[in-house]
């Protein structure tokens, strides 16, 4: 919203306040200043009207002249060296004296100092229009017309200087969407009186029409609680006077005609949007405000057609809509050059409804901006009178009958009781009750203070829609008093005996572990394309948003692997060599018809992306993925050694090269690892092999309490080891075989000593072993808690184990 300084001065005298002071005061009042723009001649110090008394040639230059210039009626003329030639002796020109600062395009300014030009003293500079910042004319000195008085400050000659502040309002400050509103804030800030326009129009209101132009006003919707219609006859539509056009242009409005301009002027002045109807076009001489019918079609002033819904509130005549309430008028009732009679609407429309309509129809007007921020319901009355005054004075015409009034203002003045101790308790430092009362009074509130007490009764006028409670008054107080007065102290807080969220603690540990292992942490968007997501993940239909912005971000992610594959592709493309990537984050999955939010950690590594090295290392492979995944489980607090892995059914894994365990609706977690599906990788733009791992868990799993581990005593006697190799079909899983060996060995050891561990130490297929078989070697470690084992007793048990095994498997010699 643009605000003109000249205009503000109508309501508050800011002549002794600098533009910088205003620009700094506004933001600290909560009114953000987006830009400050100077119109016309910028304010210039030490630039005055001078008269050229003589011109002599410069002794040392062909094009310079040495002039004597009178810049002060009561002082001797001064010598100025000048390069221009468009003037004659006797002309009056702007003269920048010593200490003046002229504007420059870079904003740094150009300081004028007494100096020598080719050896001749020059006590200032005579200026062109451009040098003053007044347009682009630099063809010569600016010759002043009408002989302004010598010594007059140049800003008194060019008086149309104005400064326009672009102010951005927060949603609660509808009262500031006007010059009077901003003036009121500045008046409060600088402790100055606020001068309101003098209103002449009669304060005459009636629910019944007293004019032949309009018979009735009917409010048929709760979105318009209050409506005023003033009837004006015999106006003559014409251009507005210069002063009004200049003001409207200064705040970015295009002048149209003396009636429309007045409504815009009052809007900018009071913040109350008005609408002028051509009375002749109001059919059946009726106004009725109602909700639109579904599918109703309406053409607005800008000649755009809108299809309406019952959400939209419409101002209608006896036949149909003539305006979208609070947003924009209709083409059908527009004021034109032929208009002679007017109905001026000043109403209060429900802020939320105007905002919704404006957004839905995508029409943003100065009117909807203000209604959406809540206008002053009482202000509708003053604004209506002001419009009648201005129209009658600018366009002729006269008001006919009383202003028709329908409904009641939805908000009036409110009385709030507040105590000084309450204010001090909220702000945390001492203030005097008189300081508090003074602030409220400056804001235009009425304050009653029983003498000697600490209570205040504050009456807040209707224009403040945002001040209803004692805490709101605290805000008003500190806003005006100044937050810089809040003393800065050391933080005083109680100790917190709460723990960090276990998910955060887990993620931190997982990130520290994975980064130490060589993985680089990534952060990817939560939203992905539903097409891609559904291609590689089951049950992904549930992940779609109701109102996505774009098709490539219309679905939640169900796995971090999609993003990580993208990181692999991007970094390979960019020739970055790397070990791998990981990400911590939230993902979403369908669990029994419901969406579930899960915590996930996933990692990927591409064995061929490491870059060449001067020496070879074994490539990371499936078992690297297994180790990393199991380590992540242990960080989460799950003992991976007890888990049984199986082949995953998820498409994202390469069939036969991956493993999984758990389910989020059963164990609360699921872990998978192995080689990523080659088709999935191809889709992601990756040609090589990528291994990965993914841990998914419900947030509460991280919070599972782990009891302190209890110590188990161990034997102080030496172990004894025996090895056995079995030749088995390739299809037999190592874990199954080991499980069987452990079972048999334990049975045979029973009652004698313990089987401490069984370890797979060799796996062989090839020469000496049939094609479909493999040899797997196990080493068993025995130990007794009570004695050193003798070879014979161990051998006896070992032979029994081998005998048992040989019943089922072929033992390798």
């Amino acid at each position, binding site marked *: 919203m643009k605000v003109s300084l000249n205009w503000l001065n109508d309501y508050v005298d800011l002549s002794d306040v600098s533009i910088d002071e205003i620009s700094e005061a506004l933001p600290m009042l909560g009114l953000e200043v987006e830009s400050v723009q100077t119109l016309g001649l910028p304010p210039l110090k030490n630039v005055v009207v001078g008269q050229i008394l003589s011109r002599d040639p410069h002794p040392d230059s062909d094009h310079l002249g040495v002039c004597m210039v009178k810049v002060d009626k009561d002082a001797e003329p001064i010598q100025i060296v000048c390069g221009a030639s468009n003037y004659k002796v006797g002309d009056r020109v702007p003269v920048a004296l010593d200490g003046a600062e002229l504007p420059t395009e870079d904003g740094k300014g150009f300081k004028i100092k007494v100096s020598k030009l080719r050896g001749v003293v020059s006590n200032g500079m005579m200026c062109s229009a451009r040098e003053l910042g007044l347009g682009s004319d630099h063809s010569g000195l600016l010759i002043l017309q009408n002989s302004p008085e010598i010594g007059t400050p140049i800003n008194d000659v060019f008086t149309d200087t104005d400064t326009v502040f672009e102010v951005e309002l927060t949603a609660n400050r509808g009262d500031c969407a006007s010059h009077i509103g901003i003036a009121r804030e500045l008046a409060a800030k600088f402790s100055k009186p606020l001068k309101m326009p003098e209103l002449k129009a009669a304060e005459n209101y009636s629910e019944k029409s007293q004019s032949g132009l309009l018979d009735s006003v009917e409010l048929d919707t709760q979105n318009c609680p209050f409506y005023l219609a003033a009837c004006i006859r015999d106006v003559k539509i014409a251009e507005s006077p210069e002063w009004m056009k200049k003001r409207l242009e200064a705040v970015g409005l295009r002048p149209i005609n003396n009636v429309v301009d007045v409504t815009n002027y009052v809007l900018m002045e009071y913040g109350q949007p008005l609408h002028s109807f051509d009375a002749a076009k109001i059919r059946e001489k009726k106004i009725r405000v109602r909700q639109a019918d579904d599918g109703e079609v309406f053409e607005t002033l800008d000649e755009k057609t809108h299809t309406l819904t019952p959400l939209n509130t419409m101002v209608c005549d006896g036949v149909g809509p003539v305006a979208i309430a609070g947003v924009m008028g209709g083409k059908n009732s527009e004021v034109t050059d032929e208009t002679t009679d007017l109905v001026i609407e000043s109403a209060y429309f429900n802020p939320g409804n105007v905002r919704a309509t404006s957004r839905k129809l995508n029409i943003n007007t100065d009117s909807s901006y203000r209604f959406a921020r809540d206008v002053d319901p009482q202000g509708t009355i003053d604004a209506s009178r002001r419009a009648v005054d201005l129209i009658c004075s600018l366009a002729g015409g006269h008001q006919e009958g009383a202003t028709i009034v329908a409904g009641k203002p939805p908000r009036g003045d409110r009385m709030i009781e507040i105590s000084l101790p309450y204010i001090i*308790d909220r702000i945390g430092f001492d203030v005097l009750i008189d300081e508090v009362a003074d602030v409220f009074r400056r804001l235009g509130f009425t304050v009653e203070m029983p003498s000697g007490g600490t209570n205040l009764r504050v009456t807040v006028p209707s224009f403040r829609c945002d001040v209803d409670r004692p*805490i709101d008054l605290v805000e008003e107080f500190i806003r005006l008093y100044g*937050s810089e007065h809040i003393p800065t102290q050391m*933080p005083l807080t109680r100790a*917190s005996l709460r723990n960090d969220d276990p998910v955060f603690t887990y993620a931190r540990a997982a990130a520290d572990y994975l980064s130490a292992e060589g993985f680089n942490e990534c*952060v990817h968007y939560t939203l992905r394309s539903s097409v891609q997501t559904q291609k590689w993940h089951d049950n992904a239909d549930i992940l779609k*948003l109701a109102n996505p912005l774009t098709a490539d971000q219309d679905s939640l992610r169900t796995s971090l692997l999609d993003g990580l594959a*993208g990181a692999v592709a991007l970094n390979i493309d960019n020739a970055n060599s790397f070990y*791998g990537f990981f990400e911590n984050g939230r993902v*979403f999955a369908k669990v029994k018809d419901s969406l579930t939010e899960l915590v996930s950690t996933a990692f990927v590594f591409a064995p061929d992306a490491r870059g060449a090295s001067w020496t070879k290392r074994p490539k990371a492979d499936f078992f690297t993925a297994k180790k990393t995944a199991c380590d992540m489980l242990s960080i989460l607090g799950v003992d991976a050694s007890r888990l049984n892995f199986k082949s995953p059914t998820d498409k994202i894994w390469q069939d036969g090269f991956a493993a999984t365990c758990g389910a989020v609706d059963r164990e609360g977690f699921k872990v998978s690892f192995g080689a990523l599906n080659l088709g999935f990788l191809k889709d992601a733009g990756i040609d090589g092999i990528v291994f990965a791992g993914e841990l998914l868990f419900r947030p509460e799993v991280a919070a599972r309490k782990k009891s302190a581990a209890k110590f188990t005593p161990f034997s102080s006697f030496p172990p004894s080891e025996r090895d056995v190799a079995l030749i088995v079909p390739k299809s037999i899983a190592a874990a199954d075989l080991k499980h069987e060996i452990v079972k048999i060995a334990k049975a045979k050891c029973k009652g004698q000593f313990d089987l401490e561990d069984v370890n797979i130490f060799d796996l062989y297929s090839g020469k000496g072993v049939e094609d479909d078989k493999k040899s797997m070697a196990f080493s068993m470690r025995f130990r007794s808690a009570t004695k050193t084992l003798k070879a014979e007793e161990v051998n006896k048990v070992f032979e029994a184990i081998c005998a048992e095994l040989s019943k089922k498997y072929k033992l390798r010699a």
Partner: protein
Amino acid sequence: MEDKINEIIARMEKLLPEAQTAAQVSNITASALGPNGDLTAIMKTIPTLDPKQRPLVGKLINKAKQAIEPLAQAAYARIEQARKVEALGEKPDITLPSPEAARGTIHPLTQTIRRICDTFKKAGFTVAEATEIDTEWHCFDALNTPADHPARDAQDTLFFPPELKVDNVSKHADELYLLRSHTSTVQIRAMLKEGAPIKIVAPGRAFRRDTVDATHSANFHQLECLCIDKDVRLTDLKAILAYLFKDLFGESAKIRLRPSFFPFTEPSFEVDFMTENLGRLSNRWIEIMGCGLVDPNVLKNVGLDPNEWSGYAFGLGVERVAMLMHSIDDIRHFYANDLRFLRQFAK
């Protein structure tokens, strides 16, 4: 006799240090001390000697043995050591790079979140989390945001279809699910669950229906701070903010509170901060976040009596802090994950 023995010792002293293998050591030692060794031969002559001389020769022989045995031990040790050194292989060029995977990196957003959380930890705050999916009530109503507030519009906030069921995100009534538009939802969930007093920081993702550009992102990270206790005042809010920015940006950091408006705080402020060493942004006010005293309506909505409890809250944009701290000019770098970016923040 004595000369003979000294000769043997001298031979051992010469040969043993020259031995190259354990077998050679063994052979050399045996040539003196073995069954056929010459020292053994001398020993065997003792019974034939004059009884007076016997102890003397015996002593000499013992002395010789004591001289030879350590020489043999030393030779064995020397050879063993040499074998191990050989196992070490060729001496490496210590300037060659390690072929092992280099340490990975922590993402700058994670680093920033950790840094801020650590700062708050010192002031007695702990980390809270909540789900990214939430409901209209938790995201808006509970935070005193009226039903017709623009932020609640489908143009700005991402919603889920009304029929969607979410397993582990509770509803207040029959409201819509959405992706939280701010982390202030964590305030609500934490206060509902844990009551007061409470002092939490809540880092997490937030979502807006924004077109992605250099400063906007479909999701971004916020860090929410909430403190509810008896008698929490504006002075406490200013104190924690002044501390926060000094801790993050150095002792020269200053803040100012500029009045503003948020539905969930009253009074509300924008925080501007100013510091040295921020390049072209040094020594000027930079708008960084919103803050305020928690609105009494918010406390009522979570069942806390505003006459008993008060507090402050604010939400910090993590990307914004990271961008300022590291002079990053485009928010999209955080989500592209190019290693040339990620590795610049490796610590």
